[in-house]
Each structure stands twice: as C-alpha cells, then as structure tokens.
C-alpha cells in the first residue's frame, strides 16, 4: 500500500519532501530514486540533462538517511534532489557548459554553490543542458542538441538555463540551479511556468561558475514554488571569501519573507518602458490581471518611467561580448579541454585557432568576435565606453524608481515559448527575448519570475517579473509569495499542475 504522498512523490514541493524525509515518512533514497526513475522515463523526450549522476545522488541520499537514523540534525532541504546547470564545476562529474570544447572535462574541484549543496545534504541528480557557455535564450545553442519545453515538446524551454527549467517543469527534479547573466534563470522560468530568482550580484558565490560575463553573471535558485525557491536561495547564498565580488553583509531572510507573503502597504512600480510594442497580447493580459490581484491584496501600484531601459539591450550586447571575448580566451586547448590539429608541426597559434573553430558553436563565435570588435582600439570609446556610461544611467533609473517604490514589476519575457528553430539563426530576434530581464543584470540588483497564467492565444505560460533593490531579495519573496497564494486560491492548484503529462 502506498500513501498519496508516495504515489505523487515527484509532484510534491521540495518543502513537503523535506518534511516527509525529516519525519521519516519517506527516505531520501526513495525520493531520489523516484526522480531518477522519472528522468529515465521522460528525459529522452525532454533532454533536460547532459549527464545523470545516479550513483553520486544516491550516495548523498544514503548519507542523509544514515544521518537521520543517527539523530544528526538535518538541513531544511536534506535529501531533496536537485538538477545542476552544467556551467558549475562539480568535482569528478563531467562539466561541459553545453560546449564541445569542454566535452569530457571533469573538474578537479567543486564550485562553492556545489559545496553548499553537498553540505545541505541535497543529492545532485545531474547536469542540465544549456546554451553554449550560457549564450542564448532557447537552449538551442547547446552543442548537444536542444532541450524541449514540457508544455509543448516542439517549443523552446527558454535559455540559457532551459535544461534546469525543463527538469523542474517535467517533474524530473523539484529544485534546480541556474545562472542569470541577462535573464537565463528568469526567462526559462517564465516560459516553463516555474519560479526562478536572480539574486543580487554578489549574493551567491561565483567561485567555480564558468565565467561568461563576470560583471553580470549570478547563480540562483529555480523551483516550482516561491517557498522552495527561497529555501534553495538560503542554502546557496551568502559570503564566500573565494569570490572577490561576494557581499560580506548578512543576506536578507528570504525564507521568512516567502512565509510572510504579504504586499499590504507596499508600493509597486509598473515600468512603462517594459510593455507595449513587441509584447504579446496574452502576456500583457495575464500581467494586467496579476497587477489587479496585487492591488486587491493591498499594494499600491503606480507607473514609473525608466527612460534608459530602451538602451539596455544595446549596451548589454556590447558589454557582454566584450567580457566574454576576454573570459573565453582561456579555452586555448593547452591545459584542458579539446585540442585540434596538434600534428607536431603546427604552431601553438594554429592549434588554438583550429581548436576554437572546432570547439565553439556559432553563437559563441559571433559574440567573441563582437567583443573583439567592441574592444579594439578606435572603437572602444564609441562602443564599450559608451555602453558603460549607459550602464550608469540604467542604475540611476533604478535608483530613482526605487526611491518611489519598494519593488518594480513587468512581464518577464515579451512572448511565450516560441517554436524550436524559429529564431536560431536570427541573433537579433533571439536577443529581444531578454529585453525585460537585462536591466537588472546591468544594475546588479535582484529579480524573480513567477507564473501568472497561460496566454489565451496559445495556452502557454506567462511569467511576471518582480525587481527589488540590491540586497533586498526578501522583497521578491514577499511579493512572489503573496501573488502565488492568491493565484492558488483562484485556481485551486499551481499553474505547473496544468502541464501536459509526458
């Protein structure tokens, strides 16, 4: 005889599973095994994972079960399994960043995020698919083939963290880690009906996170509920002396904020520039309905203007390629990774060029060349220098808006999930997916995406973005928790429960 909890195990929240494990109702091993079984069952169609580490995940689960039996105190997510984006180094486990150039590479060390997951007793199921080196908004730029959206397998799951979002939406894992340089946690969350948070820059250690654009990159939590996201955020966040940009101050209590879930008396700013032209009708409709709910819950909603946001995309596509062309120079085929053309005669430069040509995909090459161009002498001031000034103006727009409002909101992405192949060779069309998420990366503050319904025209998920000032990540959870609760009352279930069974 199985209990309802056991029958529906993979559909439970991480919080529910953690409680059941702590109380001995379920073992960490059976919870982990159930998710591994689900991966075997559906991942040939979803392709969320690049590598599954069943042995390692079960070993962690067994350690949690043994610790519990011995009476050791368990962390709040002990035994609840997780999917890890393949851009975080995990000792001894293949880490490819979705690239051929790192095929087969097994890092000799753990990222700080991975260390903290291990310390929390969280079994790591495997590594999730992504756009190569996190460059993309659809996961189609993975060298290992696209991930598919569980809501419609012909559509993209967003990117670059499409694998992490799809794994959660397909019930292959209740938790995942993503990274967000221009929206790579939030946009996949939006198009898969899940929750994702880009923490304040410096809030989660970047040590062991393979760098795309160091001044923009930030790892963060992904889950199906706001509370699960908060629990994971608390597990991975906080100061790390190995990341020189890590913030030493204490993190805000995001778990308490998710539990409080209250927007009464809050001032919420609607960003005028993040709506209108280019935003799908059904996205705007569901967004407006969510705004009405927030007002009904006791928030005051006002319109604010951030006039430089319209230049954020252009500035981002100068700053990001510049940083990435520099960061990716390390992939030279000398100390690790692919090496091509080393025939004993070819020079080191020939081998580097042949290796990078063979090892990098088209989007990486485009951005590396763009960055090389933007940083070249004669163009530097007009492009990179000007983009850095625009970055200052975007920060000032945020400062002015947060002087009037506690949080800002917008749709997370201008459209719902598009079809695989639709934009893959049209870089500008692809870049526009991140138009609403990029300003936050440029300013370094924090943001969440959470589901607010299905667009009437295509029955696909719509995400709402909440943006808060630096180190006010708790406000994301106050708003997200309140809105999620109101939608739950209205629908009687979470949106993700409407995802088609695979």
């Amino acid at each position: 005889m199985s209990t309802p909890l056991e029958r529906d195990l993979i559909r439970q929240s991480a919080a529910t599973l953690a409680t059941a494990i702590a109380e001995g109702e379920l073992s960490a091993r059976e919870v982990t095994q159930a998710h591994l079984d689900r991966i075997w069952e559906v991942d040939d169609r979803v392709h969320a994972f690049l590598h599954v580490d069943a042995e390692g995940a079960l070993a962690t689960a067994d350690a949690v079960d043994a610790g519990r039996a011995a009476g050791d105190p368990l962390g709040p997510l002990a035994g609840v399994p997780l999917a890890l984006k393949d851009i975080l180094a995990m000792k001894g486990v293949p880490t490819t960043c979705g690239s051929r150039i790192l095929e087969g590479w097994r890092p000799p060390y753990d990222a700080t995020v991975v260390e903290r997951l291990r310390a929390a007793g969280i079994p790591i199921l495997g590594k999730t698919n992504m756009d190569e080196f996190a460059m993309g908004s659809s996961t189609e730029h993975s060298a290992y083939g696209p991930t598919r959206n569980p809501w419609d397998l012909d559509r993209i799951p967003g990117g670059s963290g499409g694998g992490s979002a799809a794994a959660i939406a397909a019930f292959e894992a209740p938790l995942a880690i993503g990274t967000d340089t221009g929206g790579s946690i939030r946009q996949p969350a939006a198009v898969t009906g899940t929750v994702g948070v880009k923490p304040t820059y410096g809030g989660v250690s970047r040590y062991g996170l393979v760098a795309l654009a160091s001044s923009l990159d930030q790892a963060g939590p992904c889950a199906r509920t706001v509370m699960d996201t908060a629990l994971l955020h608390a597990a991975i966040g906080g100061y790390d002396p190995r990341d020189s940009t890590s913030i030493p101050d204490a993190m805000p209590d995001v778990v308490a904020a998710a539990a409080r879930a209250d927007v009464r008396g809050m001032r919420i700013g609607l960003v005028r520039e993040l709506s209108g032209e280019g935003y799908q009708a059904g996205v705007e409709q569901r967004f407006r309905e969510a705004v009405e709910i927030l007002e009904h819950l006791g928030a005051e909603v006002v319109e604010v203007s951030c006039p430089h946001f319209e230049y954020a995309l252009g500035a981002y596509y100068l700053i990001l390629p510049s940083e990435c062309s520099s960061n990716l120079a390390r992939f030279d085929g000398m100390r690790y990774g692919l090496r091509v053309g080393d025939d004993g005669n070819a020079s080191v430069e020939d081998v580097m060029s042949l290796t990078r040509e063979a090892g990098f995909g088209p989007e990486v090459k485009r951005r590396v060349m763009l960055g090389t161009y933007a940083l070249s002498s004669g163009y530097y001031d007009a492009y990179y220098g000007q983009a850095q000034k625009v970055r200052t103006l975007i920060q000032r727009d945020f400062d002015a808006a947060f002087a009037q409002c506690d949080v800002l909101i917008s749709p997370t992405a201008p459209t719902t999930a598009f079809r695989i192949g639709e934009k893959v060779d049209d870089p500008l069309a692809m870049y526009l997916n991140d138009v609403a998420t990029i300003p936050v990366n440029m300013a370094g503050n924090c943001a969440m995406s959470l589901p607010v319904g299905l667009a009437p025209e295509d029955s696909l998920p719509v995400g709402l973005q909440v943006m808060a000032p630096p180190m006010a990540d708790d406000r994301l959870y106050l708003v997200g928790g309140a809105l999620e609760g109101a939608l739950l009352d209205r629908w009687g279930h979470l949106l993700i429960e409407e995802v088609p069974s695979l």
Partner: protein
Amino acid sequence: MTPVPRLARMSAITRAEVAHLARLARLDLAEDELDHYAEQLDVILTSVARVSEVAADDIPPTSHPVPLVNVTRPDVARPGLSRDEALAAAPAVEDDRFRVPRILEEQE
C-alpha cells in the same frame, strides 16, 4: 551630442574585417562562415550602435554593478591541486608537464 564619426563606417562591417577579427580571436573560420558572420555582425552592430544616441558625455562609466574594493586574505599557504590533478585533463602530457605545440617560428 556630437555624432561619433566612425559610426557610419562601422555600420557596414566587411568580410575582410571579420577575417581580421577572427584572427585576433583565434578562430580559424571557414570561407562560408566569413560571409555569414559579416552579414550577421553588421545587423547586430547597427542595432547596438543605438547606444550612441544617449547623451552621456558627462556620465561616469560603470564597469561593475557594485563598487569594487581590493580583497585580500591572510598570507597563509593553502593546498592547491596536486600535479596529477592539474595534469589529469590535459590534452597532452610529457615528463609530468603540459605538452604544448611549437611556440616559436621554425626559422627562430
């Protein structure tokens, strides 16, 4: 603000310029890639060049979202990777060292 004089020229990136960028970036691009990227980089650069519309002459640049401060730690030795760990992922190893291709021109 005064228009940036190079913009007009920059909006049309040539095939030769792409080949130059590829050399600088150590990418041995194929002939058909040069044509394809010339077209795409031109479209992207034309679009991002909009940042020049912003009057920002007196605005300080921001390189980083939070003010950077120098971070140091006590000068205490900590274990690093062992030789075998460091060499484990190397494409080629010789005499317990990374073996790399020729770094000097033959006539040198």
